[in-house]
């Protein structure tokens, strides 16, 4: 999963309105992309929760509201809904549908389709359903809570939420609007057409699905009658090419337009080629260090503080994480509402030693485990080195992904090196896992990162997080997240270190600027599966 696609940053990413003007080998109105797409298990928007699946879904389906990938700062933009309002009590959101939208089948897009699509996702209750059900929808009540009325879709929430939070969630892949009549005609039993929609498309987006051959390729065909105008690229082919060097060769030979999974070495090679270019795009994943608060040594605030200065941020991002990660010491990824570029810590062994000696700590041993991914092991080993300089011994044991995750879920990893990717394009997705822990008891078996690191989040921070979720003024909400992160940086034992970036190789002729064609509209949300 290392090179897969992400979130909203991806939007940025690829504001990738890659529109090849004149291609050497591939036809001018065709876009050929090499990518690792073996993570797709379904293309049904109510089920798809993988990086590359979401990329595809983004081009097949429209949501009620969306982001402009070329201008994320502009926030939520109209899509199938043109206007929205929230009631006085903050519990009812009403969206007005666009006139004249049509599905690829020719059926008109009605409020009824939109309401049904959301109800369907809630009732199916598959991987991404929690993005909607967190607003209090259940299979039993959703027919009353989400309903269509003329050209309006009305969402009745279980408590007041920030309008921006609700809209950000509606803009994620699970909010894709499907053609009710078409999907219902393919329903088998109680599956709401899930089996059929896994391998077919029934949306109103700029592309239709021509073919999906698992582990091989996805082919998309332009929707000439798209309400936003016919896409410039008539055919888009995403080929599964696992090997970075094979992708690079294909790119150099002009057989593909875009290479999505290049290793740093091949990125350097592509950058040195005059006919090609590298486009760097931030992704949402945060690489962090989780310090388990059950460990007597790591429990001490001075140790937590000292460790922040024992990470060689510059050295690591200049060497083995070069081109894959950049330093980012905050839990909300760059590009999100509430994000900040404040990175207060630097590699400073003297300072760390001072903090520890002041607290009377001059030696100690920590035995931890690390997942056998090269990047994590490398990070762990540099830590081992800097720990040694202040008298701390770090013993490492490597585990496979599954073993490592099992131990983490059982709260048995003293220092966990891992990544977290946002599930939808709202700051709450990260804050609610890094800084929320409703019950710190072992039996609680919660999934929050705070719980896994046995960190009992202080009440005042928890209250701030809860308040930010319901703040309706977006500017105020932004400020609230800045405050939350400032406090988090001071006290939290789960330390964000780096944010992932993706380096995309492209033909020089590809236009990456303001979107000329609609493709690709990369996905806004991240897979939870990727959070392993």
């Amino acid at each position, binding site marked *: 999963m290392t090179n897969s696609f992400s979130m909203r940053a991806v939007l940025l990413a690829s504001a990738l309105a890659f529109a090849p003007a004149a291609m050497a080998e*591939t*036809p001018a109105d*065709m876009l*050929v992309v090499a990518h690792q797409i*073996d993570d*797709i*298990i*379904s293309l049904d928007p109510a089920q798809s*929760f993988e990086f590359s699946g979401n990329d595809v879904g983004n081009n097949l389906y429209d949501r009620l509201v969306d982001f402009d990938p070329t201008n994320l700062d502009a926030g939520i933009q109209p899509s199938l809904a043109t206007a929205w309002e929230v009631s006085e009590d903050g519990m009812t959101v009403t969206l007005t549908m666009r006139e004249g939208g049509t599905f690829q089948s020719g059926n008109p897009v009605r409020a009824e389709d939109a309401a049904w699509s959301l109800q369907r996702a809630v009732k199916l*209750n*598959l*991987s991404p359903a*929690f993005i909607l059900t967190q607003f209090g929808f259940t299979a039993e009540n959703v027919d009353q809570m989400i309903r269509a009325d003329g050209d309006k879709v009305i969402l009745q929430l279980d408590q007041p939420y920030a309008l921006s939070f609700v809209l950000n969630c509606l803009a994620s892949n699970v909010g894709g609007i499907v053609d009710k009549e078409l999907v219902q005609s393919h329903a088998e039993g109680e599956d709401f057409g899930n089996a059929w929609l*896994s*391998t077919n498309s029934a949306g109103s987006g700029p592309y239709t699905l021509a*073919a999906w*051959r*698992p*582990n*091989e*390729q996805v*082919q998309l065909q332009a929707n000439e009658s798209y309400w936003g105008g016919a896409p410039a690229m008539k055919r888009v*082919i995403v*080929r*599964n*090419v*696992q*090997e970075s*060097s*094979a992708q690079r*060769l*294909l790119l*150099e*030979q002009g*057989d593909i337009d875009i290479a999505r999974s290049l290793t740093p070495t091949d990125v350097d090679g592509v950058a040195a080629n005059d006919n090609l270019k590298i486009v760097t795009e931030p992704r949402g994943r945060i690489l962090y260090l989780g310090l388990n608060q059950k460990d007597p040594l790591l429990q001490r605030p001075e140790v937590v503080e000292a460790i922040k200065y024992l990470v060689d941020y510059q050295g690591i991002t200049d060497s083995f994480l070069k081109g894959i990660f950049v330093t980012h010491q905050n839990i909300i990824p760059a590009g999100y509402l509430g994000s900040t570029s404040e990175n207060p810590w630097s590699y400073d062994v003297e300072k760390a030693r001072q903090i520890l000696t002041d607290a009377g700590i001059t030696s100690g041993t920590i035995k931890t485990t690390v997942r056998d991914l090269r990047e994590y092991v490398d990070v762990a080993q540099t830590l081992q080195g800097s720990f040694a300089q202040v008298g701390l011994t770090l013993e490492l044991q490597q585990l496979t992904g*599954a*073993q490592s995750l*099992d131990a983490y879920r059982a709260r048995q990893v003293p220092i966990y090196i891992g990544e977290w990717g946002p*599930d939808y394009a709202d700051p709450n997705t990260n804050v609610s896992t890094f800084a929320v822990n409703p019950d710190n008891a072992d039996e609680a*078996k919660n*999934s929050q990162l705070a719980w896994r690191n046995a960190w009992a989040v202080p009440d005042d921070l928890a209250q701030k997080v809860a308040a930010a979720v319901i703040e309706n003024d977006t500017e105020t909400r932004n400020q609230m997240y800045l405050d939350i992160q400032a406090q988090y940086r001071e006290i939290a034992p789960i330390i964000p270190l780096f944010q992932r970036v993706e380096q995309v190789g492209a033909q020089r002729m590809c236009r990456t600027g303001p979107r000329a064609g609609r493709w690709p509209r990369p996905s806004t949300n991240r*897979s*939870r*599966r990727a*959070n*392993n």
Partner: protein
Amino acid sequence: MSDSGIGRPAPAAMAAGHGPWGRRLRGIGGLVLSLALTLFGLLVVTFVIGRIMPIDPVMKVVGERATQAQYEAARIAMGLDKPLWEQFAIYVGDVLRGDLGRSISTGHPVAQDLKRVFPATIELATLGTLIGVLVGVPLGVIAAARRGSWVDQVARVVALVGYSMPIFWLGLMGLLVFYGMLGWVGGPGRQGIIYDGMVPDVTGMILLDSLIAGDWGAFRDAFSHIVLPASLLGYFSLAYISRMTRSFMLEQLSAEYVTTARVKGLSETRVIWGHAFRNISVPLITVIALSFASLLEGSVLTEIIFSWPGIGQYITKAMLAGDMNAVLGGTLLIGACFVGLNLISDMLYRVLDPRAR
């Protein structure tokens, strides 16, 4: 993988029958029984390994943030709450009805997946074996006939390199030179973008399909894509086949009948090809069948480097995802291939070896 008598000159079961018909029936009965037992044993072992692997397939389906209720519902839907023997009985029952289940890593029915990935592997393996046989057998024979000569030395080095070179390195170098620098062959993938989907799918083997459709452009394109990976696999099977041929031949050439033939004044060509080679054809068939069967398992690294959507990649990926339906379906198919190939080579014995008739 197989225990059904490969390499044995004549199936022992044959000898015990009474009369030509009885013998044949017992032969066929025994064959069917051993085939069924082999496949069943294969299923049991694969099933058990699959269940004790420390991978949670339910987690793969529901995702990490699923509630306990969601998790339980999926577990029950997948039948994982039942005792192991019952799960196995249900699975075998389904297989007997021709249902291999649905893959959780592709979302497609396993049978449909296999129908798509296996022809890609067959195409590659067949071409690879063809190259291995056409080059490896003559090379082995000549090396034996001219033992110690430069031909023998060259054959030895070729085989040694073939055995010891890491295939991913050779594959990448091959791509770099023949695709990247010289542009003689097509890049990774089975087809160029232009020809993709142009030829109607009949056998799933693009070379054959494009011939059936009479589309020479598509054929040339497909050939330019397959030639490099097939040569690579061919090289590895050549290394094995030529070494085996050489040692079989050496054994024959030192036999007395060869000396007799030479004394009688037969030409060396006649002695080698007409007498000695005819006698090694039987064990050679076993060697070739085995090497073909092992290529049919799919070569994972070759498939990854050349973006070849074959069965090796499919099963490996399914394995890592705990996708047991796909693993079992694939194993069953490959097992059936092994057994089938053994059957064919058994039959060829009877044609080639008078003692087995």
